[in-house]
């Protein structure tokens, strides 16, 4: 299988001496749907900025489909489409002109460019808006415009930096479907997102980055297998006065009368129901508290920070 993106020992030190990346190495295989996750300031956007040639790297190597971004920038860039986090088009230009111009930057002849522009504007529901100035579009439409612009030259690798930030749920779901279709057509997709539900729903492989270092880089399945605890929220027929005590489970009473139950993976939940029944509490409904990846993410980042704090304490 071809490697879509290879990042090797990537370092970035900004002019103010801040070390944003401390030797990041990553590989993304062709056809993958890959998530790069991390808290704010972790180094996600810097990494993608270097891959997209928007940020100068301090050292390290980046290859896109085998083409080094320094030695063979033209071929590397031809294979790459970028959807940035913030709107970066001329708000006073027409929708169609923005996408046509981008096709021109990639050297696509006019006839072919027009066909591609129409295809992607239609697929993203913007064809009717093609003669409008970009500033007249809603936030969601502007995001879709940036996706159409990134796809107009048919790149093999599509990078999206928080593509659904600030987008309502309905639109987010429709963008997910669109990205899944694009991925099914064979394009490799890398995204960063704060919605871990998004990464869990879409991605096959995940890397977690914090403070410029990769904490984890594996398949979503492997990552989730590391999660040995799940939290359930139980809605009871009658709210208990005190927190029920359940042997083998951690329980918390919530303000709205629901209870939160932590269960270690593999533990039979029936044990919890039986004990509740014995205490005269009947369960009306049950749901997962949060998506599993979110729990894992928070745990990993916190573990890393606690370890760093301990090391700093020992050093001092």
């Amino acid at each position, binding site marked *: 299988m071809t490697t879509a993106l290879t990042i090797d020992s990537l370092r970035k030190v900004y002019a103010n001496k801040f070390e944003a990346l401390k030797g990041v190495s990553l590989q993304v295989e062709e056809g993958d749907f890959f998530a790069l996750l991390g808290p704010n300031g972790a180094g996600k956007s810097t990494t993608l900025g270097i891959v997209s040639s928007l940020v100068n790297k301090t050292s390290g190597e980046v290859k896109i489909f085998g083409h080094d971004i320094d030695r063979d920038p033209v071929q590397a860039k031809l294979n790459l489409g970028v959807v940035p986090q913030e709107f970066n088009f001329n708000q006073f230009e027409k929708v169609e002109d923005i996408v046509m111009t981008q096709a021109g*930057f990639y050297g696509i002849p006019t006839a072919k460019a027009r066909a591609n522009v129409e295809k992607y504007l239609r697929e993203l529901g913007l064809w009717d808006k093609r003669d409008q100035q970009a500033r007249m579009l809603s936030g969601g439409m502007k995001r879709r415009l940036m996706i159409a612009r990134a796809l107009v030259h048919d790149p093999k690798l599509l990078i999206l930096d928080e593509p659904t930030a600030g987008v309502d749920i309905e639109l987010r779901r429709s963008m997910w479907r669109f990205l899944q279709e694009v991925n099914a057509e064979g394009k490799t997709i890398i995204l960063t997102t704060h919605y871990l539900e998004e990464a869990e729903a879409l991605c096959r492989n995940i890397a977690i980055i914090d403070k410029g270092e990769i904490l984890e880089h594996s398949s979503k399945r492997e990552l989730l297998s590391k999660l040995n605890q799940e939290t359930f929220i139980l809605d009871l027929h009658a709210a208990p006065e005190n927190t029920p005590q359940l042997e083998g489970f951690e329980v918390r009473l919530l303000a709205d009368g629901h209870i939160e139950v932590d269960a270690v993976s593999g533990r039979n939940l029936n044990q919890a129901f039986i004990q509740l029944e014995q205490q005269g509490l009947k369960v009306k409904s049950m749901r997962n508290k949060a998506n599993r990846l979110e729990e894992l993410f928070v745990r990993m980042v916190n573990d890393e920070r606690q370890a760093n704090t301990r090391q700093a304490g020992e050093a001092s």
Partner: protein
Amino acid sequence: MTHTSWIALQTIVIREVRRFTRIWAQTILPPAITMTLYFIIFGNLIGRQIGDMSGFSYMEYIVPGLIMMSVITNAYSNVVSSFFSMKFQRCIEELLVAPVPNYIILLGYVAGGVARGLAVGFIVTIVSLLFTDLQIQHLGIVVSVVLLTAVLFSLGGFINAIYANKFDDISIVPTFVLTPLTYLGGVFYSIELLPEVGQIASKINPILYMVNAFRYGVLGVSDVHIGVAYGMIFLFIAVLFTFSLHLLNKGVGIRN
């Protein structure tokens, strides 16, 4: 140049031309009105009191200078405002992620500046014909000097835009450097009228050479040798082009 680069260059130029024609009321109309006022006030009303200069009526004498002044200011301001706006709105990223070589980016913006400089220069020339007859002496010199001058000041505008961090930064150079140099560059007078020290000081002003080379093409008179003027223009273009390309390659002002 590859076919891909050629299409990219065309795209940049078309976008630049579309930009300044879309906002024609800010880009084309004001210089036409300003220059008309110059012709009426300096050329017609005051010029009649001044009499001849270098054997020509004052109106005839200042027309080449005013045409050059509009070419210089418009070529410069087109590139500085367009490229800085691209930086400010982050649209420059559209170009940086695409496989467009840096020299193509530079050529594209310079071509846009030249297009606006020539468009405004042409309109000012048409306006000047309402006030005087222009008997062009050396057409080749007129065309080449105006073209090279537009290239030179487009490059100047590009460097200004690269270093600019806020909108104030794109008006400082035109206000405090370009305008004084243009006014003192022999647009309104022959440097022969100045004392010797003034003449020597004027000769370190590059705009003097361009204005006089253009005036030589139109009227056949100049305060400087035409060969020296060409040499100065080519030298400045070479230096500014090399420096601009170096800044782009380093990513100064556009990449972190």
